[in-house]
């Protein structure tokens, strides 16, 4: 539960590049709560593959345009 995720994301910069989309707007379009978007952005929660695809689809980019997996695995 407390292990930090190795998945990083560019949601924050993609939101700003998409006309300063708010977290609430993104949450509505993905179909989750704003708190979940905040947790994903802050790296506190790794979304499911399906949710990750829905987020990528909102920004019209491939999955690895939003999410990256860090190479620094222990």
């Amino acid at each position: 539960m407390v292990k930090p995720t190795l998945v990083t994301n560019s949601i924050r910069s993609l939101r700003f590049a998409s006309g300063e989309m708010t977290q609430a707007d993104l949450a509505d379009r993905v179909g989750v709560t704003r708190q979940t978007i905040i947790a994903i952005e802050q790296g506190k929660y790794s979304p499911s593959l399906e949710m990750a695809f829905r987020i990528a689809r909102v920004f019209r980019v491939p999955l690895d345009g939003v999410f990256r997996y860090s190479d620094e695995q222990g």
Partner: protein
Amino acid sequence: MAFLEKSNWVALVVAVPTLLVYVALVVPQVLSKPIAEVSWVQPMIFTIVGLIVANILGNVVAAASNPSEADKKDQRDREIDHFGERVGNWLIIAGSCAALALAMTRADHFWIANAIYFGGLAGALLSSVTKIAAYHGPFQKW
């Protein structure tokens, strides 16, 4: 704040005074008279019913404070909910096992009922604390 987190704060805020009321009503009796003479059934029923009613009222108030969020529950909420319930269930099981052992050794009804009662209450408290902690810290299911 997600509605489920509010709901867990309600459960926590309600359970602690309930526990204190029960302890304040029963423990002085346990210390001053034989167990068979302790009046524990009414305080137990009173605090269980009070806990349920206060939880319902608290959830109604939490929902009324932000109606648009009240019925929203996404995948993260469900995962946190399941995780918290699973952690809390350990104490409920521990309370049930203690009650079983007490029944096998022909202990007084008082001890059997209280093992179940405190196991349930402690499990609910642990479950709420776990969920609130999961909402604030990192939470990874996989």
